[in-house]
């Protein structure tokens, strides 16, 4: 069964304290891995897509990396405005039982950055 597990569930950081969020996945084949940011009361906002092991993407203080089993979202010198829930989702190459192109979402990591 295709599965996505994110850890930790919650992470508290001091402003400027760098850390990483983990997304481990089990799929028969990976079409793509997506990272989203979700603020309270809002819909998920797209951050990155990664397609193959070894690939890296960066945006401001965020850097996403991908291996064959997991992805990391590295946050360098975070600021309070980086506080949000970060969601990871994978798109398998095959969706069993239909649901063409469906993404399998993890439960998210809630990040809090204190000033």
């Amino acid at each position, binding site marked *: 069964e295709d599965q996505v597990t994110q850890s930790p569930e919650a992470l508290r950081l001091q402003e400027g304290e760098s850390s990483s969020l983990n997304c481990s996945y089990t799929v028969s084949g990976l079409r793509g891995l997506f990272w989203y940011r979700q603020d309270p009361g809002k*819909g998920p906002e797209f951050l990155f897509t990664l397609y193959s092991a070894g690939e890296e993407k960066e945006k401001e203080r965020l850097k996403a990396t991908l291996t064959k089993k997991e992805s990391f979202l590295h946050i360098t010198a975070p600021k309070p405005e980086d506080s949000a829930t970060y969601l990871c989702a994978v798109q398998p190459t095959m969706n069993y039982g239909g649901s063409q192109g*469906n993404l399998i979402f*993890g439960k998210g990591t809630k990040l809090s950055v204190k000033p």
Partner: protein
Amino acid sequence: NAGVTQTPKFRILKIGQSMTLQCAQDMNHNYMYWYRQDPGMGLKLIYYSVGAGITDKGEVPNGYNVSRSTTEDFPLRLELAAPSQTSVYFCATRQGLYSPLHFGNGTRLTVT
């Protein structure tokens, strides 16, 4: 350019009532999706559409129905609301089958 617009933002229903959650997009995307998000759970796919006139079930379709008569609109219908349908509902679109999803800001539904 509004992107994906969902209405209403909040709704309280009594058990057995029906309602339609509205989703409209102005990005001209063919692919549209309805997800539900429950506390501590990942987003689950309810229904999706690959274009006007074409819809199909996702992982958790029971108790819901959809229609897609235009590219822009993808309403989700709840018949005979049950407490298990208390959730936050998100509509999303994508340009292509492997493109990122673009989400609306959700409808928070409570069934009591």
